[in-house]
Each structure stands twice: as structure tokens, then as C-alpha cells.
């Protein structure tokens, strides 16, 4: 039944993540910013999956924790130091506290009532962050570093330039190795590897939670909360813990976003961002270990690569064809790429939900099953 044991899975996963700048090169996604986003939203989705995938509680409010994490770390950069460690710690702690409060209130209800409560909290946070809380969040513009920030722990920086976020001197944005392999220019930077290590750690934590008694209880909450209560389990603290854990993952992701790019915008708190993580988890396969990360990569790839395919790029693709065919093809394809990427994403998403309720992981399994099944049939046929 099981294809591989956990240790093998973890090792393969880690190897894949660490080699991502090479692996993604042919897809056009192997530049630091996007790779970092893959990893960061992967962490966000992993955390969300612990709540949604295990307990079945559908929260639309996790964007709020992403935002809180970002604001917390930018404030750390502004006030204390450009070292990322305090910023990330504060991001996780603040998001944890925030999710404790929101979770405590929202988890008094379940089903769609819970969803709407979390959505209400996220929208309130967004509205307030955008306007009323501007002294704290810098509103529309987003919280940014400024030349006159105090940064009490760091010494004076070079006049007129902003310092970079760093890990004990290793600058996040620095590309430390820039080889040319197989015709691809590869960029290895510190920022991505910080994200990668944290992604692997998050994956490991999620794996442990999945296999633990705690995880078993969460899965039990999803299938039959009533039975669980009559089995002597107090379900509320379990769901609350799951909520807070996923909130802390979101906070870590938010903190990392700010670490890789020191800006925290209010849009990060909007419910649509919370909806996006739902899409990631469902698209990848909810309740599976690897699914949320696949979903995150898929959606971010779409957002960043598909949206950049303009008519000029399309013409260059079809350049070898006769002109009338070139123009026809461009006319057919262009509504679905570039400015139409939302349309394609929406359609793909529908297709996945309709035909692959288990997400991409489910799809991969089916293909795998189909291939092995075909092999078996073939073997059988040969035997006869």
C-alpha cells in the first residue's frame, strides 16, 4: 500500500527542494524571488492543511495571520536589527497570539458559521490595516523600511542606502553562486536557502503531526466529532491547537515574505489571499503531506509566469508558422494567458475539483495506478 516510508519521502523531498534552482530552470521559474515564493507559500499551505486537511475546519481568515507575521517582522527590521532571526520569531509569536484570540472565538462555531466568522475577522483586519491603523501599518502603501528607522541593535548603516535583511551577515538577496549549467543561467541565493531549510523543517513537523496521536485526534475531529466527545476527548482544545499551529505557520510565511522583501502590505490580509491558500491546498490534495506544496507551486507559477505571456511572446512562439496561422493561434490563446490568467486558473481549478477531488496528488496516484495496472495487465497477457 505505502509507496515509501517517511524517511525516504523526507530525503527525496529535501533533495528536491535544495536542488530547486536547477530543477526549475527549464520552466522559467528558477529565479530567486519566485523560488522563495514557492517555498513560502508552501509553508503557508502546509500549515493551513494541518487545520483544514486534518480537522476539516475551513477557515477563510488565515490571510490575517500572514499579514500579522509580515507587519511584525518589518517592525523588527525597523526597530531592532536587520538580522532575520528576531523578525521571524516575533512573526510566529504574534501570529500565534492573534490566531489564539480569533480561533478561540471562531471555534465556538463549526461548519459554514466558522468559515464566515474567520472571514469576518480577516476582512475586519484588512479594512482596519488599510485605513485606521495606518500609523502601525502604513495603510495603502504598505509598511516599508525607511532611512530614518532607528534599528537599535545595528550600528549605523551606509548613508543614504537601506541595509539588507541578513542572517548573521549573509545577505538574503545575495546570489552566492551563479553558474551556467546546460545553457541555463542559474542563481543560487541565500534567501532561497533560508526559505528552503524552513520549508523542509515545516514539512518534517507536518509529517510528525500527521503521524502523531495528536494528528490522529484531529483526523477524528473531521470524521466524527460527536463520537470523539463521547470517547472522552475534549475536542475544543485540539481544534484550537490546530488553529494556532496553522496560524503560526502562516505567521512564519508572512515573516519570511517580509524577510525576503521587506514590505508588508494590507492586501496580504484580504480574504481573497485566505481563499488562495484554500485553492492551493485543494488543488494539491487536502490532507496529504505533499499536496499543499504542489498546489502552492502551481498557483504561484501561474500567477507569475502565465501572467507574463503577452501577445509578443505568443508571436515569438508561433513565429515558425505561416502568418495567418500564427495570428489565429495567438487570437485563440491570448485570452487565456497574460491578462487572462485568472480565467485559466479558474477553469483549471474547476476541472480539478470536478474530476480529481483528491487534487493533483490524487491525479498522480491515478496515473501511477493506471501505469502499474497497465503493466500488470500486460504481464498477465504475456503469461497467458
Amino acid at each position: 500500500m505505502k509507496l515509501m516510508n517517511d524517511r525516504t519521502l523526507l530525503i527525496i523531498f529535501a533533495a528536491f527542494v535544495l536542488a530547486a534552482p536547477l530543477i526549475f530552470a527549464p520552466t522559467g521559474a528558477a529565479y530567486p524571488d519566485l523560488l522563495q515564493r514557492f517555498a513560502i507559500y508552501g509553508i503557508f499551505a502546509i500549515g493551513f492543511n494541518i487545520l483544514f486537511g486534518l480537522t476539516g475546519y475551513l477557515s477563510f481568515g488565515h490571510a490575517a495571520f500572514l499579514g500579522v507575521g509580515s507587519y511584525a517582522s518589518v517592525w523588527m527590521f525597523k526597530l531592532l536589527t536587520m538580522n532575520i532571526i528576531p523578525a521571524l520569531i516575533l512573526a510566529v509569536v504574534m501570529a500565534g497570539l492573534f490566531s489564539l484570540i480569533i480561533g478561540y472565538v471562531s471555534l465556538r462555531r463549526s461548519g459554514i458559521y466558522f468559515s464566515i466568522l474567520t472571514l469576518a475577522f480577516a476582512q475586519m483586519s484588512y479594512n482596519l490595516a488599510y485605513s485606521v491603523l495606518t500609523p502601525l501599518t502604513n495603510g495603502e502603501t504598505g509598511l516599508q523600511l525607511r532611512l530614518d528607522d532607528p534599528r537599535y541593535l545595528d550600528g549605523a548603516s551606509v548613508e543614504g542606502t537601506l541595509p539588507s535583511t541578513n542572517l548573521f551577515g549573509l545577505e538574503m538577496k545575495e546570489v552566492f553562486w551563479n553558474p551556467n549549467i546546460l545553457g541555463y543561467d542559474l542563481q543560487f541565493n541565500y534567501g532561497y536557502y533560508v526559505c528552503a531549510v524552513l520549508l523542509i523543517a515545516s514539512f518534517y513537523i507536518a509529517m510528525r503531526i500527521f503521524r502523531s496521536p495528536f494528528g490522529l485526534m484531529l483526523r477524528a475531529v473531521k470524521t466524527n466529532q460527536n463520537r470523539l466527545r463521547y470517547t472522552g476527548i475534549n475536542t475544543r482544545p485540539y481544534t484550537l491547537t490546530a488553529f494556532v499551529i496553522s496560524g503560526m505557520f502562516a505567521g512564519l510565511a508572512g515573516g519570511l515574505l517580509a524577510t525576503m522583501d521587506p514590505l508588508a502590505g494590507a492586501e496580504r490580509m484580504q480574504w481573497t489571499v485566505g481563499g488562495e491558500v484554500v485553492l492551493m491546498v485543494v488543488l494539491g490534495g487536502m490532507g496529504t503531506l505533499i499536496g499543499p506544496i504542489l498546489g502552492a507551486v502551481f498557483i504561484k507559477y501561474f500567477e507569475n509566469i502565465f501572467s507574463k505571456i503577452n501577445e509578443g511572446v505568443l508571436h515569438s512562439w508561433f513565429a515558425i508558422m505561416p502568418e495567418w496561422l500564427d495570428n489565429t493561434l495567438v487570437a485563440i490563446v491570448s485570452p487565456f494567458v497574460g491578462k487572462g490568467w485568472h480565467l485559466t486558473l479558474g477553469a483549471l481549478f474547476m476541472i480539478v475539483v470536478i474530476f480529481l477531488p483528491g487534487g493533483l496528488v490524487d491525479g498522480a496516484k491515478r496515473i501511477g495506478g493506471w501505469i502499474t495496472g497497465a503493466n500488470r495487465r500486460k504481464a498477465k497477457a504475456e503469461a497467458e
Partner: protein
Amino acid sequence: MGILEVQNVNKHFGGLHALNNVNLDVEQGSVHALIGPNGAGKSTFLNCLIGKLKPDTGSVKFNGEPVLGKAPHEINQLGVSRVFQTPEIFGELSVFENVMIPCLAHRDGAFKINAFSMVMKDKEIRQKAEDILEDMGMKDKMNLHSGSLSRGDKRRLEMAMCLVQEPKLLLLDEPTAGMARADTNNTIDLLKHIGETRGITKVIIEHDMHVVFSLATTISVLAQGAIIAEGLPEDIKGHPKVREAYLGEAEV
């Protein structure tokens, strides 16, 4: 003093007096059956015992400790398990996982963040779960998806989930409802088997007199929210009030 003492419990739903001064005393080690016609208040009564409903007045003591107002999981942690009318199991989990959950609840209490140990490597829990499945004759099915079990097996699994907690009191809400005769007999045998091996006090709510008279050591009869008779099975069989309450039900 009995293991379960119920005194003067009243419950109203609007104008309906669902439970009228109910008193019940369940002896340690007995099998106490609660019978009565439809709408007599049996389920309401049971729900009051396990914390799902709160009676208007009265007291319920388990082992001398008042349980009214306690949440269901707290009452369970005191040693009261319940089997539902339709088997309540964790349908998306495997049979083995279904049994491990009550094991863990019994050992670790109502809440424990145990996020870093591996449930499958917990020898103690595994052993207990395997034992009870063995005992229930379900060991060959332990890796099956529990939602795909037959109704009889689901009932058996639910029973295993209750027993593995080593409860002091087992509440059974019509354990044979909707079962074919053969399954009913199997369940009776199962319950007898449990009685012999474990000696757990049981309260059974049952419609089927065949089951009641096969198992019960004491019977209370509930009609229109009140206990109208109580006694040994032989006494109840001929009780005039019971006959009146059950008028038309040929089996008595």
C-alpha cells in the same frame, strides 16, 4: 450504594413533561435494562446521563460523584462509555485507528498535545488495540476502512471502542435496533461474552424483549416519562402496569 444513582430527575420540553421524577439505582456489576414504549423518554433519559441534555431538576451521581452539568468528555473520563443506536464510528479512519483513539483517550486524558510521538510506534497502545480486536474477532479486519464495514461489524467495532477504555459503566442505546435476528443473536452473545470476561456494569435501553430477557438482571419500565415498575425480569414479565403500557405489543 449503586454505581449510578439518579434522583428525582425532571425534564420539560415546552409543555411536554418528558421525564417525571425519575429515580434509578444501578447496582455495581448488574445489567440494568430500561424498557418502555416509543416516546416514553428513554433516549431523553440517556442523554441526561451522558451530558448531552441537562435536566431541569434532580441529581445524577456516578460512583457518588455528581455528573450533571459536566461535558460529555468529562463524564466519559469518569468511566462511562456509550454505544449509540446507529453505530457512531470514525468512518474515514481504519478499524485499527478507530480503536486506538479510545485507547489514547483512556491513557492520556481529555487533551494532550502529543504531536511528536509516532502513534504507530506506541507499543502499549498498539498492543491494547490489537488485543481488543482479537477479543472481538475483528483482527483480520483491522486495516480496513471502517466506513466500508457491514452494520454488524460497525456495531462490533463501536463496542470494541467502548470496551478498550475499560469503562465502569457501559450505556447501550438499542444495540440491536434494525438488526436481523441472526445479528441480534450474535450481539447478545457478544454482550454475554463481555459480561463474562469483564464484568462491566451495563445499562441497556432496548425495544426487543428477546434481548432484554436474555441479558438483563434488573429491569425498569419507563412510560410517559415516569418509572412505572422496577424489578427482576420474572417480576416485570407479569406486571399489570407494564402490560397496560405495552398494550398491543404482542411480544410481552
